[in-house]
């Protein structure tokens, strides 16, 4: 059985992203005949050439205006691996879209046009990948055919990417020279660049280690709900949730937070299946040796591995609403299975995406701004930092007047 890699692709139509996606899907034989037929039909009716962007641009407005509105999710499978691809448009709303796509990604593919090299969009994309801690970044240096497959040009770009990646703390940012239009180095290695000794894009992605999950760290089990068995035969209560970090074992001594009450894990189960151990991202029921007071949003941790329980949070936000974030604003904060009231005490600074330097934020944060804030929460949150664990250090902010999700947050 293959494993699953979640991928985010970032770039604009001008970088040839739609062509690359079309290539990826076409050359891995994911596009069915009726889908291709449909694209041919629509392209022909508009009197243009075959437009592979029509495969991904599904909404009426997108087709009418020739733009991509939102993150699109699609699946493809190779012999080695199953992929879920979040396609993030590069133009409008790029920050909000890329943050969304990157939040679940194991790897991000950033597109560069070989003729222009590292441009400000590349800097922004890499900065966001770094901020969201996407475990792997792959830079697809596209349109190599337009620079005559020049090794010198490619080496220049690699050097520029390296400097940028080092500055942002991105350890893994491989560069692959390719031509999406011609299909060179996408699925199969191209003869056009004998000097390039690395793998083509798809084989590279097939080999990436899946190391985004922390199975050795402290156990974090947010309780989503309490299951009360139907009838006497069902046994005691189950605590239902997903292991977000670490590896839980039967016999582990655990503590429920925030109450601090202790118990021992008697069983871990998925329906009728009994597990001795369960690692990150697995949804299970946990049975404890005694019934203690636990509610939705509480956190089960192993004794001795308790996280800090915080009432004040330092965090990086990506602001996603048309209405500015101002100090003093009250919002709802959802982290794991816990939702609590929060107030933004201070907007410390904003990240300038051109210089990649923090700057003052006297007007708060605007749509698509990234910035550092200090928050206070009504109910203390047992939380890790985002750097320690993506799954337990992330939150969203919700405006309870509109019910909109207005920010992505990462605990510092």
């Amino acid at each position, binding site marked *: 059985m293959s494993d699953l890699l979640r991928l985010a692709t970032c770039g604009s139509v001008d970088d040839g992203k739609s062509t690359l996606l079309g290539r990826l899907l076409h050359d891995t034989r994911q596009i069915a005949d009726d889908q291709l037929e449909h694209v041919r039909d629509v392209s022909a009716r508009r009197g243009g050439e075959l437009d592979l962007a029509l495969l991904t641009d599904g909404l009426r407005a997108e087709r009418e205006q020739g733009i991509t509105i*939102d993150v699109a999710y*699609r699946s493809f499978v190779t012999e080695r691996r199953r992929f879920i691809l979040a396609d993030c448009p590069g133009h409008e709303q790029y920050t909000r879209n890329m943050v969304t796509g990157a*939040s679940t990604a194991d790897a991000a593919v950033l597109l560069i046009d070989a003729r222009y090299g590292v441009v400000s969009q590349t800097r922004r994309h890499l900065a966001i990948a770094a901020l969201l801690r996407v475990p792997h970044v792959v830079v697809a240096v596209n349109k190599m055919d337009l620079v005559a497959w020049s090794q010198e040009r490619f080496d220049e770009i690699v050097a520029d990417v390296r400097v940028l990646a080092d500055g942002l703390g991105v350890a893994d940012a491989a560069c692959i020279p390719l031509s999406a239009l011609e299909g060179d180095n996408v699925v199969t290695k191209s003869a056009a660049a004998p000097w390039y000794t690395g793998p083509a894009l798809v084989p590279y992605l097939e080999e990436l280690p899946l190391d985004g999950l922390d199975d050795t760290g402290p156990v974090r089990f947010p309780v989503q709900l309490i299951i009360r068995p139907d009838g006497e035969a069902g046994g005691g209560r189950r605590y239902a949730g997903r292991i977000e970090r670490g590896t839980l074992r039967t016999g582990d001594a655990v503590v429920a937070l925030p109450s601090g009450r202790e118990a021992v894990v008697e069983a871990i189960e998925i329906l009728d299946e009994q597990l001795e151990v369960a690692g990150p991202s*697995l949804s299970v029921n946990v049975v404890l040796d005694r019934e203690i007071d636990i509610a939705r949003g509480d956190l089960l941790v192993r004794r001795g591995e308790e996280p800090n329980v915080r009432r004040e949070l330092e965090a990086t936000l990506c602001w996603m609403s048309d209405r500015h974030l101002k100090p003093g604003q009250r919002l709802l904060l959802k*982290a794991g299975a816990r939702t609590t009231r929060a107030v933004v005490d201070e907007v410390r600074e904003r990240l300038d995406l051109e210089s990649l330097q923090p700057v003052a934020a006297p007007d708060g944060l605007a749509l698509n701004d990234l910035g550092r804030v200090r928050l206070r929460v009504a109910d203390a949150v047992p939380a890790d930092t985002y750097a320690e664990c993506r799954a337990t250090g992330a939150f969203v902010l919700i405006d309870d007047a509109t019910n909109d*999700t207005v920010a992505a947050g990462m605990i510092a």
Partner: protein
Amino acid sequence: MSGAALTPQLSSLDALESEAIHIMRELAAERERPVLLFSGGKDSIVLLRLAEKAFRPGRFPFPVMHVDTGHNFPEVTAYRDRRAAELGERLIVASVQDSIDAGRIADVHGPRSSRNQLQTVTLLDAIAEHRFDACIGGARRDEERSRAKERIFSLRDDFGGWDPRSQRPELWDLYNARVRPGEHLRVFPISNWTELDVWQYVEREGLELPSIYFAHERSVFERDGMLYADDPIIERLPGEEPFTTSVRYRTVGDMTCTGAVRSTAATITDVVAEIASSRITERGETRADDRASEAAMEDRKREGYF
């Protein structure tokens, strides 16, 4: 790699299953009156299995509902009733015929008529009647272009409509389940699954499916390149002569808009092999309702269709 893995790498099916269970539990915890839409089709059969894994040994925290056009395959409605009884969960059947009898909608007639579109009114009426605030559905992003952009927790307005341009951003696995009175959510736990994932899961879990998913001899006739069941419900046009051949259904919807495919795949293993080598999507091959226009699905979803 972060050292030696303590737990075996999850397979893609395990990862998809775990995600879907997490989604169902989030919804059940955050909404008071959800309902699971169950058509007797393979995707909603998978949803029921996932609900067992999410909520047993407790009861499901929601009833199960079928919107019945009255033109469904009898094999499927029989399966539906049997499965709900086996699970011991409450089944609500919202009937399009009742909506017609009550004068809520006018029935459609003629050889090319289908009650498929009429389902929307019955569904929205049932949501209002039972005051449901969320519907769990088996839609998948790989089915259709507009679905690729839909959130897992997708908001519907007072009229049941979907506005693709003002969707809430969905980050990490932190779902926003908030609704105002009159609004409701459509929640899609198997958004990220493909048709093949569904079949492999059916095989792995040993799930029973309605018999029409497997090859059987059936009297059919051909229209627009699709094979329709020869049944009194569908009026044939001149020249549409029925013939008997070995077919199976890839999707299960209303009889008037769901086509069969020629197939000899008699077991799940045969079907998995057939789908793995298929060059045509399931909706493209068997759903007349999606062929109406370039954005047929998007338009129907804006009006509240599932």
